[in-house]
């Protein structure tokens, strides 16, 4: 099958900016994008630059953008990709500095991984709870499968606009150690993730879950870190207050009270109150702020919702 590959090329010594070049190539049945790239390099353009090593979706070297989505070239077949998109367009990972053609600098990625201290600070053998060891792998929630390819960081919509964010790969790694029954420094780990760039900066867009070639589900790991933070009493960040206020309002009214919610999240932070006030007034004038203190704010049938909250609280007491 004759296919045209549109590949982003960029040589920093010659090109003012990246551009796309078309390559026509015969692709065999079942051929992967990586195999096609290797043939192109051998037969058509020796300057074409990309990273790869294992060719088996284990090393994580060949992550790139294929038809707009972050994928491993070695794990992506040409034909289904062509059927899905009608074309083959290949570029480097976004959000990371471009070096040449399809190769990006991974240094910012490694800095984030290092920042979460990706090593065990072990308890002594006697301190480890053997009961927890039995479920240890389940508790990781598959984060141990991460091959550090960078696809999630390239797809992260927060990292795109805020480079101080630790990002999905590093935070998934943070959960790997926070969930380890042999780890001694869990409270310190959680505390370090509360500030700017930490777990409360994730917008839950699900991109990392969608693109991960190993089903690591970094966003789920971030949620697990948030839940663990709340359970260990780290409840004063605005992010954690967003969560607890939301649940609190639903437990009383059944529906979100959009007038009350900002006040509960912001609390007594006067500066933040002044920040949201002007927009609040404009929204009010447009009829977009529901009155926060209604006499009967609850939805009809609230009794049932309260009963569900009560049943759940009871279940948690019986089986924490």
């Amino acid at each position, binding site marked *: 099958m004759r296919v045209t590959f549109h590949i982003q090329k960029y040589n920093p010594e010659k090109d003012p900016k990246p551009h796309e070049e078309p390559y026509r190539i015969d692709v065999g049945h079942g051929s992967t994008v990586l195999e096609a790239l290797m043939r192109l390099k051998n037969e058509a353009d020796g300057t074409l630059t990309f990273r790869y090593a294992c060719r088996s979706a284990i090393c994580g070297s060949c992550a790139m953008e294929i*038809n*707009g*989505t972050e994928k491993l070239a070695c794990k992506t077949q040409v034909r289904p990709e062509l059927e*899905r*998109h009608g074309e083959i367009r290949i570029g480097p990972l976004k959000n990371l500095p471009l070096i040449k053609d399809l190769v990006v600098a991974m240094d910012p990625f490694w800095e984030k991984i290092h920042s979460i201290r990706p090593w065990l600070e072990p308890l002594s053998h006697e301190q480890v709870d053997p009961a927890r060891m039995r479920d240890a792998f389940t508790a990781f929630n598959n984060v141990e499968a991460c091959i550090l390819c960078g696809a999630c960081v390239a797809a992260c*919509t*927060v990292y*795109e*606009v*805020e480079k101080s*964010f630790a990002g999905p790969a590093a935070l998934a790694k943070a959960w790997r150690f926070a969930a380890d029954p042999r780890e001694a420094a869990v409270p310190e780990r959680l505390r370090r993730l509360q500030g700017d760039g930490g777990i*409360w*900066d994730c*917008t*839950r*867009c*699900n*991109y990392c*879950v*969608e693109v991960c070639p190993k089903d690591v589900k970094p966003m789920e790991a971030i*949620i697990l870190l948030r839940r663990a933070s709340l359970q260990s009493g780290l409840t004063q*960040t*605005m*992010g954690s*207050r*967003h*969560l607890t206020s*939301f*649940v609190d309002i*639903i437990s009383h009214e*059944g*529906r*979100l*009270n*959009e*007038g009350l919610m*900002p006040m509960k*999240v912001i609390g007594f932070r006067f500066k933040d109150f002044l*920040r*949201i006030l002007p*927009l609040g007034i*404009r*929204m009010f004038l*447009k*009829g*977009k*702020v*529901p009155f926060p203190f209604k006499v009967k704010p609850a*939805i*009809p*049938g609230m009794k*049932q*919702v309260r*009963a*569900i909250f*009560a*049943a*759940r609280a009871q*279940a*948690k007491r019986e089986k924490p």
Partner: protein
Amino acid sequence: MRYALYTGCAAKGACPELFQSTMLVTKRLGIEVVEMLNAACCGAGVITEADPDLALAINARTFAQAEALGLDIMTICGTCQGVMGMANHRLKTEEGLLDRINGLLAPEGIRYNGRVEVKHLLWIIVGDIGLDTLRGHVTRPLENLRIAPFYGCYILRPSKYLGFDDPENPVSLEKLISALSAHPVDYEGRTKCCGFPLVLEKEPIAIGMVGANLKEAKEELADALVTPCPLCHMNLDIYQGRAEKKIGEKLALPIFHLPQLIGLAMGFQAKELGLSRHLVPTQSVVEKIQLKV
């Protein structure tokens, strides 16, 4: 065609114009809706962060209500669709989960049997009613408008729980925009995040996303943007002014709820569709299709 209408919180709170325009458009399309006044908040993906079983139980109660009516659920919020679609999928497919959750509903005599479908208005129009039927209701074709589709996260991802549009290359909004005779604008931001979940606590990130996405749409000469999610609408509309300051560029891009855009093409008046409730003025678009606000 009859559906149990799950409005979600926003359409009953900060975005009454979404509810208003939904009622007009569904009626015109011949969709009969029964509003689920007793339904609680879906949890917006927030309750599940604190307690997944609690979030599932609250949604299972909503599903049981629709089941008792013998109706499938229509959502009009992308976030509700994502959260409820995922909850429903998990309840139907994960072994033992439905029984465990029904255990939490039992004290009130509620039981969900897994027989309800949850569908967004967008999916109902594109998938069930059909675009030909929609075209038949267009009395004021939006011919000279370039409309940027903005899907919002939860109607696309995680796709294994949703499965209407291809998350890598969704087409339903584009098809719908074309059916209204407008021109769909292609830009990268169409599948990205609006930033709404962070807007209270991390405003710079949230408005950074607004700025980046809307700038792309403007560069592709969009006259307006349409979204099936009211939370996206809030962030892209209410915070647009602040995003303009952050990126140092004027955007002035009107943001429409899905049924508002459809309603314009059906000939409804701007006031009926609640266009005057937006913070970013919509006159430019309305004038382009010869209407007065």
